[in-house]
């Protein structure tokens, strides 16, 4: 066997030779061949009838559909897939299961793709990351020469002084940090989210997961089954022995389970789907490519399996050092030979299984290095492999992987009676592949997130779950069960229990009790073999066992501190490869047990997920008014205002404003909050929530009101009309409509609701404000109602038919002109609007948008709550003292306003004009004044400013110290960039201060 000649081996070359021959005819020079591809075998996932092409770092390779990038490259003999993060050491396939950082590549514009998980697509452009100038000659690997200068935590120590140099450090570090390249010009992809609801979720579809799903479904529960791999079956897909001399029950298990699953309508399976996290009340998050699932379930079965634990020894990161399960995946799923001459380092029967598989395929097994005594090995292949001449070294382990960019040999050593390395026993073996099968780390992240607890079993050198929260169940390797038949029977019960918890069937306490599983030990406590070279604990961040010891010696001796200081387990693998080994090293260095050392906290996401999938679709929901389409058809420039999409202007906002002043204009104010209050208790409620008086408002009248909270801060403003006896109609600001509705609901439901019924009519009614001197003339043509000033004066409400539609008319406005607000049923909005426009057009009326309204209201000095006021503004300071009646009984904010009134406001909101009429200071600019030492002090700020087309000068509102603000005409200074611009205080409205025009 040692010379590699076997019937199987010959077949391999025959098949590969045929493929090579075919390809050489076409692209002899450029296309890479696949010498490591085996002959077809049952269970493989590739489709050999088709060949597709892709490139890796510019070189062309071939693959079959079903190949992953990593399997296709391995078939072609590529060993180095990436460079490590810190030292730029060459790295190759380690886990082949998406759990380590070693095969991260860039594919097109997508960085950090796991090559072992991503299926090859024709024409894929795969590139190595984090290399300069190339993967095979990476000059940045010179950093390891200086590794003595870069001990663990060196970032924290090195780049902090002198502080002045930080920008330089940061610039340089930016180049060294990160792995892939983000192309900021990449168009955003199509991502979406899906919400799922079920009774039981099973995570992981190995024998345990499938069995648990069947057990739960049998009970009648709806089950969702998730697996991160491309097919169901878990380890059964690649652990069925290839060695035909030993027929096994295991080979029948997977087909039987899959058949049972296909017969079970209650189970829905998701492959290629990683469950990322568990959240409160059994809310799970999972990702499948560009789709994010949010799943609500009643119970969960965690059947997530286990990670194979790497062994730490000299050069253990050399390409060609691989986990046993990785070798099995390559062989069974992709028909790819990971090496030609292999040394197997093991401490359990799993390593022997790999050896048997490789031997059956004709690979030269150079040695099996088992740290146990001969009689501790119970592998069924033990004697068979020895008999055909495979060298077996019991009580030995590996000391070093030899090679520069890939494995070319292994140094092994004998262990003495205490398990220490026996001196002068080193032997060198030739090989190109070192497979380690040293044991398993249960994948318990989800269990821990859900609040489950494990204990370390020193007998088995694994953590074993000891308690699970209600509704959470564990099965399979995650529960410490390795034997397939036990996995299937125990998981069935776990699934059944999960269904019972979800409300299906009676709880059978006897059956639900976990039986005692006696498992042979599968995991070694030897995690690290001492040596002289670099030994990596953490592949993601290039942390060695010496770094861990240094960090502990520096005082970072708790596992959580060690993690943060060394960055171990914080890289792409999130601890899958390193957490158990780190805990062992930490325990040993501290002289504590593994159980005492504890674990780090598991947090989502467990598996890598793109930010796009988390973000979802690039959509922002907005509300549109009933005449939205009319605005679009008439050239409106739309803007998002609060939750609404509204016309900002129709081309020229200044002209729209002027038109309102001269003839008139029509604005869509449908987003206004509209609330109907009915009942005998309404006046009392209004007295409590508004700062002014309401009980004396007669039917048919409208009053402006300000709402405050109990801090005396302005919440909202608007008008409220007394429609009839016990019916009132309230409007609120557009942006505050929802908040006011919630606010009123709260007071009504928490004690002030007697005799009041509240209805939200915001969407029921559309509202348009017809403003300007011609507005009465326009409206008169559409209604029979007497609109004469005497019959329908300012601040009144009247019911009227406008263009045959029953409407409410309110004689109010924000513009300072004669104005009518038409509130009509939304369904008739377009009809009413068009009728108003048709009549109005002849009289010079034009539609106007928010910008014109903002100009017009500023000319009148009206404030906008939320723009001119903030979370500190009270109405006494915000120029609304006239709307506050402190002498009325209790109302919201009164006690605070009484106190503010007694002390006197410190800042006031006032109008201002610029000395230079053409200068419009931007909203938000500071008002400054020189201090005694000449330095400028901020004394106020601009909240609103516009160029007034009516007055032909810049005007605005600003907050100023009360003493300054109260002097009409007082000068002050606004800082605009580097310039200081002079302004002066203006009391009262800028336009029509006596308010004659709105009372016309």
């Amino acid at each position, binding site marked *: 066997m040692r010379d590699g000649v076997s019937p199987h081996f010959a077949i391999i070359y025959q098949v590969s030779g045929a493929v090579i021959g075919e390809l050489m005819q076409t692209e002899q020079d450029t296309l890479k061949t696949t010498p490591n591809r085996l002959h077809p075998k049952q269970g493989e996932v590739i489709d050999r009838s088709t060949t597709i092409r892709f490139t890796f770092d510019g070189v062309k390779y071939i693959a079959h559909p079903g190949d992953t990038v990593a399997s296709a490259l391995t078939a072609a003999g590529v060993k180095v897939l990436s460079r490590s993060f810190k030292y730029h050491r060459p790295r190759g396939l380690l886990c082949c299961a998406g759990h380590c950082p070693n095969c991260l590549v860039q594919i097109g514009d997508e960085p950090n793709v796991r090559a072992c998980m991503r299926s090859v697509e024709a024409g894929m452009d795969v590139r190595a990351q984090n290399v300069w100038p190339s993967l095979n000659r990476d000059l940045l690997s010179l950093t390891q020469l200086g590794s003595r200068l870069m001990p663990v935590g060196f970032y924290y120590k090195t780049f902090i002084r002198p502080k002045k140099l930080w920008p330089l450090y940061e610039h340089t570090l930016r180049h060294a940090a990160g792995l892939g390249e983000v192309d900021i010009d990449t168009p955003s992809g199509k991502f979406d989210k899906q919400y799922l609801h079920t009774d039981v979720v099973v995570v992981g579809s190995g024998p345990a997961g499938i069995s648990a799903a069947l057990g739960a479904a049998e009970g009648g529960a709806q089950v969702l089954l998730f697996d991160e791999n491309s097919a169901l079956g878990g380890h059964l897909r690649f652990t069925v022995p290839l060695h035909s001399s030993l027929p096994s029950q295991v080979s029948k298990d997977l087909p039987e389970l899959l058949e049972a699953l296909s017969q079970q309508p209650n189970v829905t399976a998701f492959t290629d789907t990683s469950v990322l996290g568990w959240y*409160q009340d059994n809310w799970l998050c999972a990702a499948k490519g560009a789709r994010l699932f949010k799943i*609500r379930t009643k119970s969960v079965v965690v059947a997530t399996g286990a990670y194979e634990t790497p062994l730490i020894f000299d050069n253990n990161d050399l390409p060609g050092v691989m986990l046993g399960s990785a070798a099995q995946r390559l062989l069974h799923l992709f028909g790819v030979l990971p090496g030609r001459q292999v040394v197997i380092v093991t401490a359990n029967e799993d390593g022997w299984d790999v050896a048997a598989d490789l031997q059956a395929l004709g690979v030269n097994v150079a040695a099996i290095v088992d740290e146990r005594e001969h009689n501790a090995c119970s592998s069924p292949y033990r004697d068979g492999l020895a008999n055909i001449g495979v060298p077996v070294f019991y009580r030995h382990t590996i000391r070093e992987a030899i090679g520069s960019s890939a494995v070319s040999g292994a140094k092994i050593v004998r262990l003495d009676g205490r398990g220490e390395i026996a001196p002068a026993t080193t032997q060198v073996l030739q090989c190109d592949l070192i497979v380690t099968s040293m044991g398993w780390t249960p994948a318990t992240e989800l269990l821990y997130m859900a609040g489950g607890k494990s204990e370390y079993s020193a007998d088995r050198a694994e953590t074993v779950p000891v308690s699970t929260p209600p509704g959470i169940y564990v099965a399979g390797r995650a529960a410490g069960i390795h034997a397939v038949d036990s996995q299937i029977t125990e998981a069935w019960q776990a699934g059944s229990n999960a269904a019972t918890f979800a409300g299906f069937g009676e709880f059978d306490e006897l059956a639900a009790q976990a039986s005692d599983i006696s498992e042979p030990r599968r995991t070694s406590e030897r995690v690290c073999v001492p040596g002289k070279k670099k030994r990596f604990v953490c592949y993601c961040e290039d942390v060695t066992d010496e770094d861990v010891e240094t960090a502990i010696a520096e005082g970072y001796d708790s596992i959580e501190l060690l993690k943060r200081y060394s960055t171990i387990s914080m890289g792409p693998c999130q601890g899958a490869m390193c957490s158990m080994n780190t805990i062992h090293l930490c325990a040993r260095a501290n002289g504590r047990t593994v159980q005492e050392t504890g674990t780090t906290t598991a947090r989502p996401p467990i598996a890598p997920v793109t930010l796009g999938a988390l973000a979802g679709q690039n959509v922002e929901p907005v509300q549109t008014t009933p005449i939205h389409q009319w605005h679009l058809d008439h050239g409106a420039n739309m803007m998002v205002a609060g939750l609404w999409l509204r016309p900002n202007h129709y081309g020229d906002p200044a002209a729209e404003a002027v038109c309102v002043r001269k003839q008139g204009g029509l604005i869509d104010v449908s987003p206004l909050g509209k609330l109907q209050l009915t009942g005998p208790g309404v006046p009392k409620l209004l007295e409590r929530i508004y700062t002014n008086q309401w009980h004396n408002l007669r039917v048919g009248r409208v009053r402006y009101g300000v709402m405050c909270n109990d801090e005396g801060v302005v919440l909202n403003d608007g008008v409220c009309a007394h429609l009839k006896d016990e019916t009132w109609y309230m409007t609120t600001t557009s942006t505050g409509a929802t908040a006011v509705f919630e606010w009123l609901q709260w007071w009504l439901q928490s004690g002030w609701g007697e005799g009041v019924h509240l209805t939200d009519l915001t969407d029921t009614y559309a509202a348009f404000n017809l403003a300007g001197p011609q507005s009465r003339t326009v409206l008169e043509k559409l209604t029979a109602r007497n609109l004469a000033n005497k019959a329908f004066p300012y601040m009144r409400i009247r019911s009227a038919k406008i263009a045959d539609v029953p409407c409410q008319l309110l004689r109010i406005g924000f513009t300072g002109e004669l104005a009518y607000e038409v509130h009509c049923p939304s369904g008739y909005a377009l009809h009413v609007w068009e009728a108003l426009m048709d009549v109005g057009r002849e009289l010079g009326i034009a539609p106007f948008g928010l910008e014109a309204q903002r100009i017009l209201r500023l000319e009148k000095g009206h404030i906008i709550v939320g723009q001119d006021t903030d979370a500190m503004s009270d109405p006494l300071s915000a120029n609304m003292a006239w709307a506050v009646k402190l002498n009325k009984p209790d109302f919201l904010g009164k006690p605070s306003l009484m106190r503010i009134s007694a002390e006197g406001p410190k800042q006031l909101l006032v109008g201002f004009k610029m000395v230079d009429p053409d200068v419009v200071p931007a909203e938000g600019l500071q008002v400054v004044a020189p201090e005694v030492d000449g330095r400028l002090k901020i004394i106020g700020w601009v909240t609103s400013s516009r160029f007034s087309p009516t007055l032909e000068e810049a005007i605005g509102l600003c907050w100023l110290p009360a003493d300054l603000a109260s002097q009409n005409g007082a000068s002050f200074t606004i800082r605009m960039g580097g310039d200081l611009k002079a302004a002066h205080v203006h009391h009262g409205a800028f336009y029509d201060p006596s308010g004659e025009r709105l009372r016309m």
Partner: protein
Amino acid sequence: MLLLTCPNCGDRNVSEFRFGGEYGPRPKDPSATSDAEWANYLYMRHNVMGAQTEWWHHSDGCGLWFLAERYTRTNEVIKTFPYVKRDA
């Protein structure tokens, strides 16, 4: 994601609700409060580590403001119940 039981609608995702803060009634006669009492009502919260009674609003649902008792340390909701005005 937390599940909250709306007294009207049953179990719903917490994203349908708005948190309304600790339960703390408004003083019966606000005009008679001292500065300290008024400031206490406005700004001081017990912020207990343990069972807290708090307001929730089913804002994307039926619109009910109700009370919940929740362990602030574990986020476990003990019960939810409609507010009933106590006798003055």
